[in-house]
């Protein structure tokens, strides 16, 4: 017979197969990493250096290997290529709004009437919870064009008020049906739980009737 059955989980009858021997063997060595098993003094520093180098290589290698994995979750090249949207403003009549998609989010483009601009400018800034002047939220000399990201700053619902049939809230802008936030004609939060004004995306006028968002 090559082996002999004995005990519960060991097939062997030789002393080394009980763990105690090996535990003692490592515990007996003084090194904290449990690697060093002998004590040749002149080799000690060289050995430590070697272990340290190996350890750093392992750590650096693991770090480098993780990077591409994490990076692969970021937007891909084709997604980034779609990160700007051009909008033709010419068909939007005064008082009308359109919704365009930009980076997968709705963007409200509103052609404001003079009255709406006036209302937005007449507000006492000090009374606002997110203090911002309407002038800061539009392009100079393009006061009638308000461009905001159509996502409620509370918890991410899309406010209503784009269509003429929909409620525009108490302040003539937008109303979020989820938790009752009211936005004014500058897209600023006036009433309800939302903490901030509707965000203004980065955009520029390429011509009088063409804007590029993003």
């Amino acid at each position, binding site marked *: 017979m090559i082996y002999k059955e004995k005990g519960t989980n060991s097939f062997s009858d030789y002393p080394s197969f009980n763990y105690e021997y090996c535990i003692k063997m490592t515990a007996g060595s003084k090194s904290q990493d449990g690697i060093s098993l002998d004590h040749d003094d002149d*080799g000690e520093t060289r050995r430590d250096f*070697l272990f340290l180098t*190996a350890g750093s*290589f392992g750590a650096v*290698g693991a770090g*480098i290997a993780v990077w591409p994995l994490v990076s692969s979750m970021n937007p891909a090249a*084709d997604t980034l290529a779609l990160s700007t949207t051009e909008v033709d403003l010419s068909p939007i009549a005064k008082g009308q709004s359109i919704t365009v998609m930009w980076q997968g989010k709705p963007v409200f483009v509103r052609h404001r009437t003079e009255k709406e601009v006036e209302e937005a400018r007449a507000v006492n800034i000090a009374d606002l919870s997110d203090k911002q002047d309407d002038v800061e939220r539009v392009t100079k000399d393009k006061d009638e064009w308000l461009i905001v990201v159509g996502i409620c700053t509370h918890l991410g619902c899309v406010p209503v008020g784009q269509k003429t049939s929909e409620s525009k809230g108490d302040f003539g802008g937008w109303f979020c049906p989820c938790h009752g936030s009211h936005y004014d004609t500058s897209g600023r939060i006036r009433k309800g739980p939302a903490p901030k004004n509707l965000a203004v995306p980065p955009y520029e006028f390429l011509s009088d009737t063409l804007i590029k968002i993003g």
Partner: protein
Amino acid sequence: MIRSLLLIAVLVLVPVTGFAGGGETVPPPHHHWHFSGVNGTYDKAALQRGYKVYREVCASCHSMKQLSFRNLTDLGYDDSQVKAIAGEYSVVDGPNEEGKMFERPARPSDAFPSPFENDKAAAYANGGALPPDLSLIIKARHHGPDYIHAILTGYKDAPHDAHLLEGQYWNKYMPGHVIAMAPPLSDGQVAYEDGSPDTLDQYASDVVEFLTWAGDPYMETRKRTGMKAIIFLLVFAGVMYGVKRKIWSDVH
């Protein structure tokens, strides 16, 4: 150790050849390409010439669905040049507010427009033979670059015993020699602007360079990354060999 390496070698090198295609096959002559080898890179001038050949000749029948205009920056064009190139094409977008599809100038983010509406239309317009999409043509053929070059330059007069039907041509390197594509390129057909010779051989070489890039656009990054990875692993392995020797020194 040596035995295990040998075993790996045997397993890896069990030839996985098996040529596709029916009929007689003539192996394409071997070329040395700019992109061949460990340090091979794409020749940007050749890529641009190859793209010109593709645009002016191949694109009338062959689509390249996997490519977008934005990819052309790899060829050495800057953003405004790419935008200008894209602007020469129009693509179908929509539906608009009225629910209608409309045409607009292409943007860099758009894919290369295909010459035919769908594969059936493409096959119908070409006598039943579907012109394959060229995005991956180099990877989809054994010895891709050499093979495509050989096909483009391999048109010969048919031998007397060959049976060719209407719309068929004789090509030395096509498996079975019968090909449905008319000789696409001839000397002087495309006017190069950089002084390269306007010859069939030059056209074929440039278009192969372009098509190789189209199928393998990340090749240069791949090789560079590989060099770093392998050097890192070799040094690490060297250190580990030292560690292993040290640890085992008191056993032997």
